[in-house]
């Protein structure tokens, strides 16, 4: 659908696409705005915006803390939508929402899709919503033309990967390892055979995330994956070295 076509077009001119991740409202929407501006200017191809949740079960310490601090500062789902609309109007690249299912459930599934479509959000990543629990969610995704991004992990069997590919759209998010976000991943031989299994299970573009931190990691992924996801790393960078470092960091990745 729309997201996949957009990504394929970008892939015509680039050997790997960069996806980055921000936590909305952390440390503030003003900083989010500045960071996104630097990311887009320096060639990021797609941005995941995480709507914070009080119980981010699949996230490691960096993103967990960002979720908590954002909520402590009073971030609401409404503010996240308003901000998202501003970003999608300003920039051409695809924006995704990443969040946990309760945020969508509390908002109302259809209302959430409707609003996301209106805000020109292209995909949703919901780590605690397996397709078995997502019957109506997947229907709304079709109706509102928003890609449900499904996740492969090294524990996924070949059969499971095929099954997931049937539900997924836009691209497949391949977690580079077991565990939560943020920790460095080993991209060795085991990883290569895992990625080969991912490749043979689906025709959708493959994004690799979890612990992708620098140019070396991204060089390893070139030719094997279509996209690299930089998540916790830029959040830590903003925390420790300030917003202005984001641009040069992103520019140096490719």
């Amino acid at each position: 659908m729309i997201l996949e076509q957009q990504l394929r077009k970008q892939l015509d001119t680039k050997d790997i696409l960069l996806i980055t991740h921000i936590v909305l409202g952390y440390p503030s929407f003003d900083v989010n705005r500045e960071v996104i501006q630097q990311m887009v200017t320096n060639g990021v191809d797609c941005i995941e915006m995480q709507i914070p949740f009080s119980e981010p079960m699949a996230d490691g310490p960096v993103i967990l803390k960002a979720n908590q601090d954002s909520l402590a500062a009073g971030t609401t789902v409404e503010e996240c939508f308003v901000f998202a609309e501003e970003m999608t109007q300003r920039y051409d690249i695809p924006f995704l929402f990443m969040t946990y299912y309760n945020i969508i459930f509390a908002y109302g599934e259809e209302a959430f899709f409707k609003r996301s479509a209106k805000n020109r959000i292209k995909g949703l990543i919901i780590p605690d919503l397996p397709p078995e629990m997502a019957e109506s969610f997947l229907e709304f995704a079709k109706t509102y033309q928003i890609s449900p991004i499904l996740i492969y992990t090294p524990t996924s069997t070949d059969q499971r990967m095929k099954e997931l590919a049937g539900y997924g759209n836009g691209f497949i998010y391949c977690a580079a390892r077991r565990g939560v976000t943020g920790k460095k991943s080993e991209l060795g031989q085991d990883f290569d055979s895992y990625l080969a299994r991912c490749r043979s299970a689906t025709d959708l573009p493959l994004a690799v995330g979890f612990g992708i931190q620098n140019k070396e990691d991204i060089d390893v992924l070139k030719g094997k994956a279509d996209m690299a996801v930089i998540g916790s790393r830029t959040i830590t960078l903003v925390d420790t070295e300030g917003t202005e470092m984001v641009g040069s960091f992103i520019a140096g990745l490719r």
Partner: protein
Amino acid sequence: MDKNGFFGNWGGAYIPEVLHQTFQELTAEYTRCRNDPDFWQEYLHLMSTYSCRPTPLTYAENLSAHFGGAKIYIKREDLNHTGAHKANNVMGQGLLVKRMGKKRVIAETGAGQHGMATATMAAKFGLECTIYMGEEDVLRQRPNVFWMEKMGATVVPVKDGSRTLKDAINEAFRDWVTNVDDTHYVFGTACGPAPFPEMVAWFQSIIGIEAADQILNYHGKMPKKIYACVGGGSNAMGIFKRFLEEPDVELIGVEAGGHGAESGAHAIRLSNPDAMPGVAQGYKTMFLQNSDGQMKPTHSVAAGLDYVGVSPILSDLWEKKQVRFESATDDEVMESLDITMKLEGIIPALESAHAFAGAFREAGQLANEDAIIINQSGRGDKDIFTIAHAFDDPSWKQFIIDRGKEYLQQ
């Protein structure tokens, strides 16, 4: 439970993809155990030799006379090994872990009783063990932390979120998704993703099976009412399950009223309109949350009831009106605890004392020939610091001050 793990509208398995295969294996092994009569026999043998099953049903003669109504019976899960009903579930899962060949167990704990039971099981079965416990609960339940560590477990204080049970569960999940190949998560209550709610309720059902035999033996007929405290809901499901087959037995779950239903500082999910349906920690149930779906802080004097969610099986029974839900405030709980100690020489855990408070309110309205059962899910001596503090006990305070001075001088 249906094929997707739902009880009516509640439950399910909202798990990250990395756990998919593990849940397939867990569900398959659990199903094999359920269909294997030898497994339950092995479980009963273990519980009667390693623990004190069947636990007694005590006739509380003095309390009965005091309230002047129904005969009050107490199901004594406090006399189970490690001092609470928690061991029923943990030993059962221990047998499952042995069959699955996993080498390491992890668990969350609130009051520390589930952590204690898991550390005990790990010691007995030769497994590595890590326990996640909210930092606030580590402070509230220091004696349990001491024993867990002595039995060889690593206790990790969780400093995120509200630093209580729900945060310990999140952290245990983070461990599990990282170490899924060799680790089993011994979920402590009848919550979480399927098959945990049903599996935990199954192991705990031993409480009600025993209690039904015992009450018929002592009282000659079924009780009128059964009271259990409800945090996650495993002790309540344990005693209720057998009696769901008895239409004339009323089942009452007592939730943590904290500072009162109006105060906002409580953990009342079902007997109060504060909670809303939601999905978190792997399952759908009634959660205390705001309109955005963010979980709210909870409060109870009892760490084990201080939880935002509740068993999906209980949400279903609540919706179908098969279980009535009430709540008891911290103050009522302390009064009930006091009178139970003075009249019966029994020390219920602060969690269990909620069930006592619920029962004491209603016992006087029943006739003398009626019986009620209170499930005493655990013993209260673990709560000595909290209880002594709540009673503002002067001689205990002096003891702590003196001991503190002694340590400072060393």
